[in-house]
């Protein structure tokens, strides 16, 4: 079981625990270390502020020689994110280097949120709004942020959440 890819992923996890990046949470699936779930908190002072966006990172056995597949599970409104949630990021394609690890991927994605590349947009509408109607763009992004809050981060902890809500209200 302990292939090079898995060993490397365990090392990545250790590194995340030792030197955790800001506003990013990532952990592998309980039963499969090759699939990770990650949450990126939208950077402050941007339209994505306070949003909690879920991602899945799927590694294969060729990691770290091949990049993993990164995909947003939350609905996104961003020039470089396809409707399916797939990302258009150069370091996840032709500029991939084996020295990148999970934390560097997530920080790159986090910085991509506020610094989109409109030269080759994956979402043409988002790119157009970002370029011409920044207020409209921010509004649409805010909608996705609010939707991200409505999502259930922990599928198995429904009861707990409700309890908490009741407590916080007063």
């Amino acid at each position: 079981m302990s292939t090079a890819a898995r060993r490397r992923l365990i090392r990545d996890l250790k590194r995340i625990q030792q030197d955790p990046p800001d506003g990013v949470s990532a952990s592998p699936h309980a039963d499969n270390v090759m699939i990770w779930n990650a949450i990126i908190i939208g950077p402050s002072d941007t339209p994505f502020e306070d949003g909690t966006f879920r991602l899945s990172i799927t590694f294969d056995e060729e990691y770290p020689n091949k990049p993993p597949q990164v995909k947003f599970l939350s609905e996104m409104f961003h020039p470089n994110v396809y409707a399916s949630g797939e990302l258009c990021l150069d370091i996840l394609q032709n500029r991939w280097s084996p020295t990148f690890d999970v934390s560097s991927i997530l920080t790159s994605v986090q910085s991509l949120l506020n610094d989109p590349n409109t030269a080759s947009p994956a979402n043409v509408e988002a790119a157009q709004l970002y370029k011409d109607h920044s207020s409209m763009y921010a509004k649409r992004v805010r909608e996705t942020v609010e939707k991200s809050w409505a999502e259930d981060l922990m599928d198995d902890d429904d009861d707990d959440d409700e309890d908490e809500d009741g407590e916080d209200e007063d």
Partner: protein
Amino acid sequence: MSEKRTIDSDESANKKIKLDQLSESGPLTLKDVVYFQKEAIFRELNLVRAKCDTLGMSLKSTALEADRLKSRLSLIKNIVMSFVRYLEPVDKDNLLKDLEKLVEGESDDSLEQALAILSKFVSSLSGEIVPTSFSDISLKLAHIQTQYDGLALENKKLRETYTQLNEHYLQSVKENDRSNSKTLARIKPKTEETPTPDEVKESKSAPRSNLPTNTEKFSSEEISHKLDEYTATIETQKRLLDEQILSNQKLNEQINLLHQSKREEIEVKNSDVYLNLVKDYDTLNAEYAEINKKFEGLLEKFNKSEVKINDHHDSIVSRFHEEKEKVLAQCEKLEMDLTRIRTARDDLLAKVNILQSSKDAQEVIKDLNKTIETQKSVIDLFKFDSKWESSITADGGEEDIGKLKRSNTILINELKEFETLFKNLQGINFKKFQHIIENESILNKYRVEKKKADEKYFAVMRTKDSMTSEIKSLKDLNKKYELKISSIEDFRKHQDAEIANQINKNSSMERLVQMQKATIVKNDLNVTKLTNSLNLEVKKNLDSTNQLNELTASKTEYLSKISELELKLSTAESKNKAQGHQLSSRASQSSGSVELDSYRSLIYCSLCSKNWKNTAIKTCGHVFCKECTQERISARMRKCPTCNQPFSSNDILSIHL
């Protein structure tokens, strides 16, 4: 695999902890994120609540305004009704009926119609009733209109400031929430400044984030920390309260002051600066007018002088031209005289030549006279000869005497002939002589004439010289005039420059006046702003008093909480001491493990993190393990994983650490 298991067990442990308890360090757990999400939602909620509050307030104000407008409408209706009633005695039945009908109708449209009819009515009446007070009313109306415009402007400004303040308020609520959020601090552990509430308004919402929690599970450290926080917040609130009270008093004073000043302002727009400014403005205006006057006077003078200069110039030029023409005419005359004199001289010279030739002829006559004399002498000689012959013949023979007598007679004849000839010649000579004398007399006459001509010539030459001198003097005069003209032109230029200067001064004065006007307008604006701020301050004051009450309530609450927490603290402190030893040992362990990990990352291959670093890439110098480099070469990914520099199988160098 063993490491993975430990992580899983950590997560399961986390699940049992209450959600509002954050993990202190290390990576963000899912719980942390959920907690963060919740807080974010609450922050948004808070913001929405604030927005709602502001909207409610604006709704109230609009409702009040609507009420006021309604009352006004009813007032207007009353006025119209009374007016109509007043009009009743006038005999315009059908109109009045319409009016009554329309005025009785409650809807606004009917009122408008009534007003229209009334206006019609008034226009129809205008012929009969002389509107004496109409002009006064219209003036008043205009005055009111201007006042209304000013108020509308003020209202607009106030609205703007209100919206700005609203935005600022929402922003500050949001910021406050964010600064008080523990989760945000957790997410960004590098900025560990504990946020202090800077406004009472904001501190009011502080307890929302410091949610009452099940404190039993808190460690003693946390409790003491919380206690400190609470006390700090209470102290700060106290301080803020005091400050608020003080500021309240100050604001009250300010309000009173502003009220006073406002009253005075309305009458006199009192402030000294304003008066000074007005004075300055007036003086500047006066100065400006003076300067304008001066400028106009200067302009007139300049125009006059220009006209004078032009006249002078024209007269000089005309005189110069006249003189010039005169001189030219004289010159022409003189030249004509000269030519005449020359022709006369030529004639005279020709005559002199003729006379000289006649003189030659006289000389010829003299020669002829001389020849005549010589011939006479010859004749005398002949006579003598004949006498001598006769004497001889008397001595020699009779024949000879006869012969001689014959020859003598011949000779006498000849002599007689000669004598007649001589006489003829003499007559001719005499005639010729007479002719010569005549010629000589003519010559003398001519000479006299020539002398006269010469004299004339000299006179003419003299006049010519005098003319040239005159021309010279005229030229000098001309030059002088030209100099004068140039000096006049210079003077004119100077005048132009002065005028330009004056114009500049004028414009600068105008600018000054405009600036003064602008400052006055600014002052007016400031006055309005001050009144605005006054109103705002009054509002704030009310708000702050409300908050004050709330804060006193919350303070008592906090005090009770503090007593509770102090109890908890005493119980927890004992626990804390026991835990202290364990914590210290753990800390040393963790630091050691971190060091170890860093060393590990130094010596293990960064790609697989399994093998030792033992293979260097010669092109760039980066070091990995043999397996990984071989794998990359066999997978045809022949670029350095770190720096993307291409390498081949020849560039691999095995190293021994």
